């Protein structure tokens, strides 16, 4: 079973994402900000990460840069999932090493479509 780390400061969003991902057969862990996510990744790298942008302590783009600089941190497939929909933000995310980008609001159909594009389904 592939593991997913859902990183979002909103518990509601984490729950929605968890439900969608578990229904698709993933084992899901959660983190409420980038720092907690980075700590979790250093303990055990997940197969994939669903990543919010705006979070307290450490935001999504800072987390992603830190992750990609961590040994083994190039392995997880990272999908941003954010209300940031500006083209410049999307480009920034890709440059930082994001594999895909989901613009909120999202639904299970979008998540499923993005996961199959990156080869997780």
């Amino acid at each position, binding site marked *: 079973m592939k593991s997913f780390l859902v990183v979002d400061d909103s518990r509601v969003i984490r729950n929605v994402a968890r439900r969608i991902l578990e229904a698709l057969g993933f084992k899901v862990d959660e983190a409420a900000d980038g720092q907690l996510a980075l700590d979790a990744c250093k303990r055990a790298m997940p197969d994939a990460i669903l990543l919010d942008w705006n979070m307290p302590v450490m935001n999504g783009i800072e987390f992603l840069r830190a992750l990609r600089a961590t040994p083994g941190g190039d392995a997880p497939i990272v999908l941003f999932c954010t209300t940031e*929909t*500006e*083209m410049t933000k*999307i*480009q920034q995310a*890709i440059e930082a090493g*994001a594999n*895909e*980008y*989901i*613009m909120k609001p*999202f639904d299970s*159909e*979008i998540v499923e*479509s*993005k996961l*199959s*594009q990156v080869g997780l389904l």
Partner: protein
Amino acid sequence: MKPDDFAFFTKYIYDQTGLVLGPDKMYLIESRLAPLARKYGVANIDLLVGQLRTSRTADMQRDIVDAMMTNESFFFRDGKPFDQFRQIVLPGLLQSRAARKSFRIWCAAASTGQEPYTLAMILKEEAAKLAGWRVDIVGTDISHEALERAKSGIYTQFEVQRGLPIQLLVKYFKQQGDKWQIAPEIRSAVQYKSFNLLSDFAALGAFDVIFCRNVLIYFDQKTKGTILDRMAKLLPADGLLYLGGAETVLGVTERFQPMPGQRGIYQVVGSGGGAAKAV
């Protein structure tokens, strides 16, 4: 809707478009016609169907046909057909059409444009191999409304997130408020034409590949058969036909056979129509 109105309406749509509407589609018909009743200033859909019977205008006919069409589509729909296009079909064309350096693709149910634009983006990505080539992508649909949207190349945030890789969104789209518009060089790669699949195909010219995905499911066996038979005549002996995942040629036409090992792609049986022989 009264039974004789329903019978009239479903026959009218069948005659005009080949679309089969069974009794289970009553709710669909009513929900699609209700906005049109308002548009034409009549109190309910019974009166609208009454006008369609007795005093229909060309605009009304067009609106009603448009309303009954299902225009759901998305970029890279089902994924695999486009992998096959890039890995099997395109290399084949590059080889077999090397002398004339051109080929033509028909998207026979182009809907709101995602399928032809997907092909146009793939061809753009492969542009290095296509230098000096002329590629026509013709997108046709019976729905004027869908074609207008296709031509505009403007999609919602939801639409650009179904099937389209983010790298291609960044590369080929411009943000316009909360919408996304596809780049002019992709838009100009597709010619759109309003076209009814029941009408004569001759005016469209010959093609090398036809995409006819997820449209035959709306037709009865006989209509499916005649459409596919006539499509075979537009293709050369090595021409290819794409059908949707739930569609087949088996028991429908003998002019096509499955391409071995390539699910969803069909080859012309025998010599084809001989329309445009590969040189």
